[in-house]
């Protein structure tokens, strides 16, 4: 069975690759997601083959690429940064401006979105990986907790260890030292989340918090991130239905040629 796909957006991230197909109205009609492989071009070919199969259209659909690997998507009509694409995707979903936090595998961004959906300011983590998903990934590996469970494990306790190192490498040493001192995994994980969130909040302050606070990116699926972000900012955090697909959806909307003023309600998306 084919899906009505008029345009595609692909988000080649450092951890996962996402592709979204939208219908003529910009609704998210189809998507596919997989772990990022070492051969980006081959993976993109495979993703596009899947999209063509889903659409039942052998011809070229308009495609916008985003994410760190966008430069290797040779089939793209246009290449756009994640900042613009995430803003576009989230605006489509919520129809209002605000402050968007996107925690990705390689970097984190805080994006100020104006009332008409335009990017008014943004901040990205500095060169260090501490404020990124990679920080949690590395720590989870050390603590032997599956990545998808680290948030719930962190929230399973009220005890919290202070992780003083903001550097991912030093934090690893700190974890090893804490384990050696017999500290349980749960409070360490809770402390790690707190450490990450504090760095994110510093970026939120740089951009300036304009409500509502929104969260996108794969890390948004981690419940501890959402909870602690609310605690640290004292603001309610709202999540899109598919936080991980916001970048690819935004890219697909751009491929469709939809301007910032597209105000079509997000309801009815599949």
């Amino acid at each position: 069975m084919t899906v009505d796909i008029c345009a595609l957006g692909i988000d080649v991230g450092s951890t996962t690759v996402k592709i979204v197909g939208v219908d003529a109205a910009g609704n998210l009609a189809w998507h596919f997601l997989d772990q990022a492989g070492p051969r980006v071009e081959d993976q993109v070919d495979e993703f596009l083959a899947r999209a063509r199969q889903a659409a039942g259209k052998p011809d070229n659909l308009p495609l916008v690429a985003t994410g760190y690997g966008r430069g290797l998507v040779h089939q793209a009509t246009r290449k756009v940064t994640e900042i613009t694409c995430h803003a576009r995707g989230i605006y489509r979903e919520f129809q209002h401006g605000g402050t968007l936090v996107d925690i990705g595998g390689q970097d984190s961004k805080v994006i100020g979105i104006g009332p008409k959906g335009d990017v008014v300011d943004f901040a990205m983590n500095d060169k260090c990986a501490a404020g990124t998903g990679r920080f949690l990934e590395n720590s989870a590996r050390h603590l032997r907790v599956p990545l998808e469970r680290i948030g719930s494990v962190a929230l399973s306790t009220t005890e919290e260890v202070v992780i003083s190192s903001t550097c991912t490498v030093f934090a690893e040493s700190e974890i090893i030292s804490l384990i050696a001192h017999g500290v349980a995994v749960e409070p360490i994980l809770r402390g790690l989340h707190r450490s990450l969130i504090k760095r994110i909040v510093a970026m939120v302050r740089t951009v300036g918090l304009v409500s509502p606070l929104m969260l996108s990116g794969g890390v948004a699926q981690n419940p501890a991130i959402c909870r602690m972000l609310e605690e640290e900012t004292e603001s309610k955090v709202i999540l899109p239905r598919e936080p991980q697909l916001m970048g690819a959806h935004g890219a697909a909307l751009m491929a469709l040629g939809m301007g910032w003023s597209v105000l079509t309600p997000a309801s009815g998306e599949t």
Partner: protein
Amino acid sequence: MSAADSLRFYAGVNLGCAALRLNRWRAERTAPRRQSEYLAPPLKISPRTKELIARHYLEGRYANGHRKVAWVASGAPVELLKALDFYVLYPENHAALCGTARAVEEIATEAEHAGYSRDICSYARTDLGAMLSGKTPVGRLPKPDLLLACTNICQTVLFWYRVLAHHFDVPLIVIDTPFIYTEATDHAAEYVKRQMEESIPIAEKVAGKKLDERRLKETTRLSKMASQLWLEIMERGRHRPAPISVFDQFIQMAPIVEMRGDAFTVDFYAAMLKEVEGRIARGIGAVKNEKKRLLWDNLPIWYRLRYLGEFLGARGVAIVASTYTNAWGELAPMIDPEHPMESGARTYLHPILNRGTGYKLATMKRMVVDYGLDGAILHNDRSCKPYSVGQIDQRDRLLREHHVPALLLEADHNDPRAFSEEQAANRLEAFVEMLGV
């Protein structure tokens, strides 16, 4: 000074200069090797710039024994030394040259191996590395007979020049310039003037001659003229499209820094101004398809000038004004050749780095209006703390109070190991998209 050294100087320099003139002559008559799809061809004056810089270092190579040599910090009152016929070398300029020649990693490592931390300014590490190893892309640097540092650019120079003084075992003159939060007080100017006066006998002793007041006035007059011309050249950037970009200014600023007080520097900038005006008359823009105009704050990223110029140029973005290049022209009106000591004291008190962060913000705000700018890139320079401090607030205030989008770009002016091209490109790209290009 020995006759043999002088003979060696004249033979080496004259032969070398003849070769440099020939190179320039050839370069002026052939099309530039690199033609950019997005940028105007390099300024026609560029071969002359290259010749001036090469000649300067060539003279330095043969200077020891023929002329007295002074190493000076960029914000030091060099007119005194010029008037005493010193050959003047600027370690900061030499370090920047190493940056553009991609030689910093190797040279700075020499300093790091000797124990100097990578947290120290990359200019200082490049200079100390060159001092310790003798490595330089210019062949050979002359040994100093005198050192002159002024604290109006940073405090690092104080410690850096003490190391040089210890290593070369030569006198060091330090001019201490009190920080100006709002306005320079009379006693601050008097304090700097007295230090300048006290430095004269030391410099005279090394030079082996007395300071001629008429020479000092003449040198000061030439400094003022060159600085004024430089200021005028930069102000031509107000035109749309801007005839030269800040990247052009970075390349063409070497003479105003290290050849201030020389007559040929005045001629050079007069010729450059003429060329820039010619570009305006013919509607030539530094960026072929200028869509947005930006400001640059802080030092350049020397080892990525071409990359950044091309990257932004390809997107129709021209950087047309900078607080850094402006610093070498904005004080021109303050220089009074009839009162070189009094006006020198005031001038050298007022560099942007010796003034409160509010002054820099005011300068940026003025530039946004004067040059019709759409945004600002604030290079957050790991090496230059005095220039980078306050940038977070400055960025914030540009955005909130003046609705000027501004990007904080992390890098280092001379050390490529502190620059992540992928991350910088992503931020610049996102910023350009935000500007609506």
